[in-house]
Every structure is written in structure tokens, then in C-alpha cells.
């Protein structure tokens, strides 16, 4: 039945248990499915359909609605450059251009090696630290075109197993939206831009479904 490993199934069961209705688990399960392959495959969606009791078409209807569920491989590092209004005002188009050039991949593409994907994104909620860039959704604020190029070079060379937003900020960032102050104690996300290293694990005490 399930193609997922026992550990992943365990995680899936925990996710489903958090919701009064299992269909609600479709979004976290899609992230879980992505974490297996690095992107969302048809098999992954079929698996999610089984877990949530809906049809694969219904899963696809949800999955294709959101920009973060990637239907094609995006590389090990997905670099997203915000080009919405505030970032645009402070030169994000040039940052995007630098990223594309350095990576050798245009918006929506992956570099030749399949390591780095590049995309422009709508507002990332970092307008005060514009221009903003994310690597696997870990934020860097105040990025210049030069820093953007260095970022790509560094990813190619260092190939970190996980990316940490504080480290990235220190290496490639500038002005921030607000004082970050606190260093993040845990490593962030990797190796794929997927979300299984966090998301809710809260013990849910109310048992059974409510509706």
C-alpha cells in the first residue's frame, strides 16, 4: 500500500491525528511527500490522497493552488528572490538578474547540475530589509547583486546539508527588517526545500474527531 517508509508513515499518522477531519492534513502531507523526492510527484499525490480519503484529482486541485508545492525538481537549493514592490524599489530586479546569471538558470529553472533552482517570488514579508532572498525558504535580507552571486558560488562550493538563516544572513545579508538579535538555536531546513524538520508535533490531547 504505502510507498513511504515506516518512519514517514509514523509522521503521517501524527499529522493526520492533529486535525478533526483528515482532509485537513492534505497540506502538511504534501510537504511530507515533497520531502521524500525533493518535489511533488504523481505518486506522492496519490499517496496523500490515500491518507486523506480524497481523490488524487482533489489532491492535485489543492497542490497546484499553492506556489510552494513544486511539480518539477527545483534542485537541492531553491533560491527565491522577492521582486514585489518594496524589494523592487530597492533593486531586487538586479539581484534576480545576478542570481539568474550566476546560476545559469532563469526563473523557474534549475542549473545545469540540478543543484540550484532560481525563482522570483512575490512579497516574502521582509520589505524592511529589502531586497530579500530565501534559500530553501530561509531568509536573507538586504541582499545586493554582488552578495547574490557570492551566495550562488558558496552554495556550489560549501553544499551545506542544512541551511541556517542566521548564517546566511551573516554571510550574504545586509539591512534587516528589524533587529534579529536572537541567534537561531537549531539548524534550519535541508537537504531539500521541504518542511519536515518542523511543523506541528504538539501533543493533541483532545481525542477523536469533533464533527
Amino acid at each position: 500500500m504505502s510507498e513511504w517508509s515506516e518512519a514517514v508513515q509514523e509522521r503521517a499518522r501524527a499529522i493526520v491525528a492533529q486535525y478533526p477531519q483528515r482532509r485537513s492534513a492534505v497540506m502538511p502531507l504534501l510537504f511530507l511527500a515533497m520531502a521524500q523526492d525533493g518535489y511533488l510527484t504523481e505518486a506522492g499525490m496519490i499517496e496523500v490522497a490515500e491518507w486523506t480519503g480524497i481523490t488524487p484529482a482533489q489532491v492535485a486541485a489543492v497542490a497546484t493552488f499553492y506556489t510552494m508545492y513544486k511539480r518539477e525538481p527545483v534542485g537541492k537549493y531553491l533560491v527565491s528572490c522577492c521582486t514585489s514592490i518594496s524589494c523592487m524599489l530597492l533593486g531586487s530586479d538586479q539581484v534576480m538578474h545576478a542570481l539568474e546569471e550566476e546560476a545559469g538558470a532563469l526563473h523557474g529553472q534549475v542549473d545545469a547540475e540540478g543543484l540550484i533552482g532560481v525563482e522570483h517570488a512575490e512579497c516574502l514579508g521582509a520589505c524592511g530589509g529589502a531586497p530579500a532572498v530565501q534559500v530553501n525558504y530561509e531568509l536573507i535580507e538586504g541582499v545586493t547583486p554582488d552578495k547574490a552571486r557570492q551566495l550562488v558560488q558558496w552554495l556550489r562550493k560549501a553544499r551545506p546539508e542544512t541551511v541556517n538563516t542566521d548564517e546566511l544572513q551573516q554571510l550574504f545579508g545586509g539591512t534587516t527588517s528589524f533587529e534579529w538579535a536572537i541567534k537561531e538555536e537549531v539548524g534550519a531546513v535541508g537537504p531539500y526545500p521541504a518542511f519536515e524538520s518542523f511543523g506541528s508535533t504538539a501533543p493533541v490531547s483532545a481525542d477523536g474527531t469533533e464533527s
Partner: protein
Amino acid sequence: MTDLTREGIKATVGEEMVKVTVDGQEFEAPKGQMLIQAAQNHGTYIPRFCWHPRMRPVGMCRMCLVEMETPKGRVLITACTNPVADGMVIDTKSEVAKKAQEGVLEFLLINHPLDCPVCDRGGECPLQDHTIAYGPGESRFVEEKRHFEKPIKISDLVYLDRERCILCARCTRFSDEVSGDPLIEFLDRGNFTQINTFPDQPFASYFSGNTVQICPVGALTSKAYRFRARPWDLVSIESTCPHCTTGDRITVQASQNEVLRFLGVDAEATNWSWLSDKCRFGFEFIESPDRLTSPMIRQEDGSFTEATWTEALELVASRFTEIRDAGKGLAVLGGARGTNEDAYALAKFAREVLSTNNIDCQLDDGLDPQFLAATADRARISDLDSARTILVWGPDLKEEHPTLYLRVRHAVQEKGARLVLIHPWRNGLDDRATHKLTYRPGSGAALLTRLQSEEGEVATALAEGPLVALLGRTGYGEDGRLAEAVAAHVRSLGGKLLPLARRSNVYGALDMGLAPSLAPGRATTDNPGKNAAQILEGLAEGSILGLLMVGSDPVRDVPNGELARQALEQARFVVALDQFLTDSSRLADVVLPVEGFAEKEGSVTNVEGRVQKVNRVVPGPGQSRPDWSILDDLSDRMGRSINLVSAEAIAKEIATEVPAYVGVTWDMLDAEKDGVVVPLPEATQPLVYLPADTPGKSFSGELVLHYARTMFDDGVLMRHGPSLEHLAPGAVAILNFDDARRLGLSDGDQADIKTSQGSARLTVRIDPSMNHGLVYVPFNQPGIPSLGSDPVVTVTKA
């Protein structure tokens, strides 16, 4: 219960009336009715695309924007999502409303291809119509239109052209909300939104054709109709669907004497415009090149030669007269697929000319005719809408009574009825069942006894009325009389009943007396004849010599097909009135070609006792004749004229001679939109039958066969329709994992399935949802012998 899906707005239309003003005209409308409907009922048409009266509103297309007065000034609202309220003042034609409507239309057109000349919808397209009525002259959109690969095949029956789609969500709502198989969905977002299926998972819904009918543009088209005609060339005549007992209203459309399309008609009493794909695309047989066009006589070597009517009828008359006069027994099988007029003629012919009561329009797969014809406390289909509890203990409605399935689904999902579902296995309504009980065929009586005696949730649910029960045989291993016992229980609870039998006009045929124990008008005969099973046995053992088959194919259609084959082979003389050479009529001595659906006029009676018209749209092929005229001709030749001159004359005779039908004339039926329900007599049958697990028929420890029909099978009408012929699921034997392991079987293995009445070698499928001790085999699949109606089965690895 599955999880809730999108709730949306449910219009609960009550009794209370409210005053509304639309464009200066004041009128009263029921509170809760959507403004768009209320306005339309009072002569104001508000343009719309997404709204459909039989589905929840989504307010997506925004075409129905109108202005409403409020204390804070006028606001724009969508007429399809706002129920009328007392004192509501609406302007549908104000500057602002018109500007909004024209704006929406322009937006819809900017990405719509201008391929109307090659579009099936051209000429019957609301977008085209609205553009002429409200639209801009020329496009201000100079950008590139949205492009999609066109058209893509999304199922065996349906094509999708996403460029034409205006994203009204009618098809997606239908499949999710109405038919319960959400296989077609919105994908992507915003300006890239499209309708599509999941890769490699086609839109394999039994109801897919409805989406073609309700698509307001030409985005969804059907394989059967694509490029066949232009709407303005079509002749449209209303009729009643020839496939199910629900009596679904349809429009038959033809061009140049060729039937090209069935459309559902929104009849409140029956199908609300919906049709299953079997019904919708089951028109192709009418134009099949295989239709019989002249009488045929079988030769010594088994081949047929064409004959003149005179030759054929002379032969039949002389052989039947001979058998009759020798007192050797004649019998009649069939007649449940024609009109009441033909059934009346047949009953009269059988009794007066053939002198026999060996008449059965059911083929050993139904219920007791007394029970079917005279069930008192018969429910109307519309009673489902107000039921508190619905009991379904019978065939899988989705497979065998598709529009009733939709109605039950609607009652549970939209009206909050509780559904008690009793079935041996998985069932189309499982996801909506409040209580689902499964049991092994053969032990239904024990289950019933438990329901009657034990307290519990199910018993409580059944006791809380209004209760409507849909009862029939869940499969052929089921004792046909179990339903009667259940009916007695339901009746004791004050519930109403819909008995479930097969073949479109079975109720009309029974009412006309096509049963061993019934005289026309649901009266009981004094000396009942033999039923279908007994007739076949009689033929096989030689106690009956002659058989008249009327539109029936016992070899494929009775559970014990092997017995039917033997019967036909042993019979001395067999005559078939048929549209096709079937596995049965191939064994007849004389085959007479008849006019079929859409070729003759008459009346039919549905499960509620509702009498409706069927109409002639095209002529029958070749020398085919209506049944009644053949029978009348034969009666003359056999010296006992039944004196029938036309279908209309028969109708008049029925309206004066057949008790329940007195006064029901064609004029009346033509005038009444939803036909007429003929009155049912008081409960005449005693219903004392209380089956229990018969000693010696206890199946514990053994395997039991669940042998039931699927919507698509190897039936005659499907075999002769190119769209449907390949849709039968095919014969398999479905088993639980544990049973399979015990028998040494794995998925895909071949196994021999054996009952006392037949055997077949089938592919094994393992299904975790299958109950222990149960084997499911779909009935009448291509190329597979039948297994009969004995539920005891053995399965061995081949």
C-alpha cells in the same frame, strides 16, 4: 462518513412568502429562494453562467450582478447567491448593473476562442447568446489569448477543450456534489486556472455525460455527439428514458431520421435533468446497422433466411395453434421493455390466443409480481427529499438505479436524511451512509430478525420517520422474498416503500398483466401460471413446448443462463420479437423485427406508478413493426382475433378496461408535465412470508457468492452502442486477502468458480474491503458463462 466538503450556501426554501420588488414589479416569492430563480419565475431573466438550479450556488462567474437598495445606498450583489428577503428592492437593469454585466461578459470573451463555427455548442451557447444581447461590439483585448492543448480526451466518453472553458465550476460541482465522484477539478490558480483530471485517472464517472449537458459553452463535448449535428438542424421530442424504472424524462433529438442525442429534462418528479451515461449514450443502438429489418426463419443448419411477413406469421400461427390445441403448453417471456400498449396487447394475446397464464416479464431476477404491482404505502420518489431516514436494502443503486442513487445522495447530503444502508459489500452510497451493515447473501433473514428484535442505533434510526425504504435483491444469491419481509417490517414502522425491479417498463408490464398471477390492472388471476424459472424448467424438461420471447434475452439475462440455453434448445418452437439477434433469439425458430424506442408512441409506468409518454421521433428500420400489430395479426391467423387497430386505440382500451388506469388517456399524459400517478390498491398481499436461515442452507465456514449487476455489462443495448460496448468492467472474482490466502490464491491468479448452477474461470482480484467468506462476481460480463442464483460457491485455483 467522509469528511465534509465545501459547504457553500444551501438554499432552504420554506413555505413562508416574502415581498420582493424587481425592476419596479412587486411579487411574492418563497423565503429562501435565490433571487435569480424568483425573478425568473416572475418574468425577469437575469443573465448567468455558473448558476444551476440543481446545484449549490458558487457565485463565481459574476454575470448575475444586480443592484440592491440598502439603507446605506445601492450595492451590487449576485442574484444567484442571495436569497430573497422581505422588502428587497432590486434593479437588474440599472446603469451600474448593466455596466457590471457587460464588464463580466467582456472579461469572459477576452480569453475565449472564436471558434463558434466549429463548436458543438454553436447555436445553443449562452455565451454566444449573451454576447449578442449584452456584449461589446469588438474586442479591446489586443494581448495574446490564453492557450491550452485542445481538446483533450478526459474519458472514454468526454472531451475537454480548456480554451473554451469559462470556469463556471458546473462540471466540478456536479461530479463532487451531485454524483459524488470528484475526478474532475480546478487545477492551478488565478489566470492559469484550468479544469482537468489527474494524470492517468480519467473522468470515469457513471454520470460524466451530465457535465457535457450542463457545460454552458463547448468546453465539454461527448464522443457520441461531437461534430454530428448543428442545433438548428435537430428535431427535439420529449420522451421517457428506456433504460431504468425511474422514468427519467429526456429529450430525444434527431436529424434526418437519425437519433443523435438524449438530453435530460428537469422533471421535478423524477430525474431533475440528470441521466446516467448508460441512459444518455444508450441511444446508439437505435441506429445500429445490426438492427433486424425483416422477419427471419431459422433453417435446419441453424442459419437464418429472410422471409416475408406472411410466410413468417403463417408459420408461427400454425405451430403455436398446433401446440396450443394439443394442450401441450405455451409460454411468454418478456415485455418489460416496451410500452404499456404493447404489454397490454401481449397479455391479451397470451391469455386469449395462446390460452396460457405462463407469462413473465421478469426474468427470474426480480421480486414477487404481487408485491411489485400492489405494494401499498408506495412512496413517491419525491418522498426521499423529506425523509428523515432512508433505508436502502437492495441492489447497489449507483449500478442499477442511477438517478435514484443521485436522489438518495441528495437527500442525505443536502437535506440531512439519515441513510441506513444494508448490502453484502461496498456500495456506491457508502460514503454517505449513516449506518452501514454488511451480511452474507443467504443470511439476510437473520439480520432482519435481529433488526426487529434488538435495540440499537439502526433500529432507532428506522423508527424515526418519515421513513422511506428502497428494497430489492442485493444480488442473485439473495432470496427474492427477503425484500417482502423487510417491507413488512418497514410497513409496521409506518414507512413508505419503493420496491426495486429491473427493466424500464416492468411496472407497466405487470400492471398490464404480464405475470403468471396478475390480470391487467393489478388484479389477481384465479389459476396462476408458471413464472420465468418454472417456464425455463418446463421447456427444458418438455412439459412446455412453445415459447414467445418479447424483447427478452434469457440466455444472458436470467441468473441461470445455462438453464435458459437448455430450455431454448429443447423447446419445440420458439418465436422472438426483437430488435437484434441475441444469444437467445439466435436459438429461436422465427425472429420478427420490431420497432423500438423512439420509433413508437405509447405510455410507460415507473417505479412509483407514474405513467408517462414515450414518443415517436424516427421511423423503425426496414420492415419492423410494433409488437401490438404483429400480435394482432397473429391472433387473426390463429382464429381468435384480439381486435387491436392502433397503439392509440389500445391506450383508449386501457383507459376504460384496466382498473387502475381508468381515465388515464394520452391526451392527459401529453398535458401533464410529469405524467400521472395511477392509484395503488390497498395492501392486498398478506406479507406473511418470514424467511429465516433455512436449515441445511447455513453457509457458515463456506464461501458465499455475491453475484450482482454493474451499470455496464454485456446487455444487448450496450453491445450495439459504440460508446458503451467497451465499458463493461469484465469478469473477475473479488476476494478478501485472508480467504485468498487460504485458497492459495494471489491477485491476478486464475480460479474456477463453481456453484450448483454454473461455473466459470475468472481472474482473482484481492480487495481489502471485501468481507470474509464472500466472493463477488459481476453479472453478465462479456464472454463469461453465468453462475446462477445459488449462493453456495467453491473457488479453486486453476
